Structures are given as C-alpha cells and as structure tokens.
C-alpha cells in the first residue's frame, strides 16, 4: 500500500463517518460537497471531513483508493458508500437513514 493510501486508510479508520470533500463542513467549496454535508447534517450524522483541496496527494489518491473518479466521497465504518449522486438518491429513497441507523452512526438526540 502506498504512503498516500496508508494515510487515506488512517483518515477513514479515524472516524465512523468520513467525508473527503472540497472545502470544510462549515465552508464547503463545491456544490456537490455542500449537498453531502447538508444531507448528513439533516440526518444528524456526525462526520469527519477531509479537505482534499489542502492535500493534492489525497485528492488524487482517494480516486484510486475507491476506484471512484470524483469528490466528495463518503465512507461509513470503513466502507465506501458513494459520492453526491448515490448519497442523494439513497437519501431520497430513505435508504441512507436506514444505513446510518444500522451502522450505529446516527447521533442520539
């Protein structure tokens, strides 16, 4: 595993939910990243965000890591869930809420 892939795996493993995105949760710098942050916040799912704009190696490395060509990318308990399209579609179908509850990553209100 390359150094970058090792760093990526460490980021993924460091939080139940990790989002590789452009910008930060407070200041997303891309519409797709902002949409994912909006959905996760709406579902009350705490997450760690990794700003790929601050790390060119991770920005490219994450695409090879997941065999997924775009940002944002959402990981739950180490598993790649999808990008903005899939997260949005799962949210609209009610599947995302179920996944988060099943994975035990929804914050207790």
């Amino acid at each position, binding site marked *: 595993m390359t150094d970058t892939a090792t760093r990526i795996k460490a980021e993924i493993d460091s939080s139940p939910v990790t989002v590789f995105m452009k910008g930060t949760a407070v200041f997303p710098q891309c519409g*797709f990243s902002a949409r994912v942050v909006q959905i996760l916040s709406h579902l009350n799912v705490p997450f760690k965000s990794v700003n790929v704009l601050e790390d060119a190696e991770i920005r490219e490395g994450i*695409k090879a890591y997941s*065999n*997924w*060509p*775009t*940002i944002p990318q959402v990981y739950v308990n180490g598993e*790649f*869930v*999808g*990008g903005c*399209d*899939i997260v949005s*579609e*799962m949210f609209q179908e009610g599947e995302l809420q179920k996944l988060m509850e099943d994975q035990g990553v929804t914050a207790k209100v």
Partner: protein
Amino acid sequence: MAMQADEITGFIKSALPDAEVIIKDLAGDGDHYAAHVTSEAFRGLPRVRQHQMVYAALQGRMGGVLHALALTTATPE
C-alpha cells in the same frame, strides 16, 4: 475542454451495448450533464458498482474533461 451529449452516449453504449441513455445538459456549457442509464448489465449490482461501470465506459473522462455528471442508473423493468 468539454464533451458533447452524444459523445457521452457513444462511450456508454460502446461499453454497454444494450444501454438506454437519457442525457440532460444542465448548464449548456458541455461540462455539467445529468444522465440516466438503464441496462441489464446492472441487474443485482449495488449502485456504486453500477456507477463505476458507467465511469469506466467514459475511460477516465469523468472528473476530467467532464466535470460533472449527475448519474442515476436502473435495470429494465
């Protein structure tokens, strides 16, 4: 750099010959499209795998010359 709608359809159909591809140009700039792809090849596969098949058909253009493709996939009824 940008892509034309029929170019996108062409790439997808060459990899998924049975695919039905509906494309909407979201911004008129050749860079932001929505595509709905229906193919028997997706049957039984998780969404991530289905989308990865479409991205593979685009041979590395996704996220490059093609900045945004709002993608949804389905299997024939």
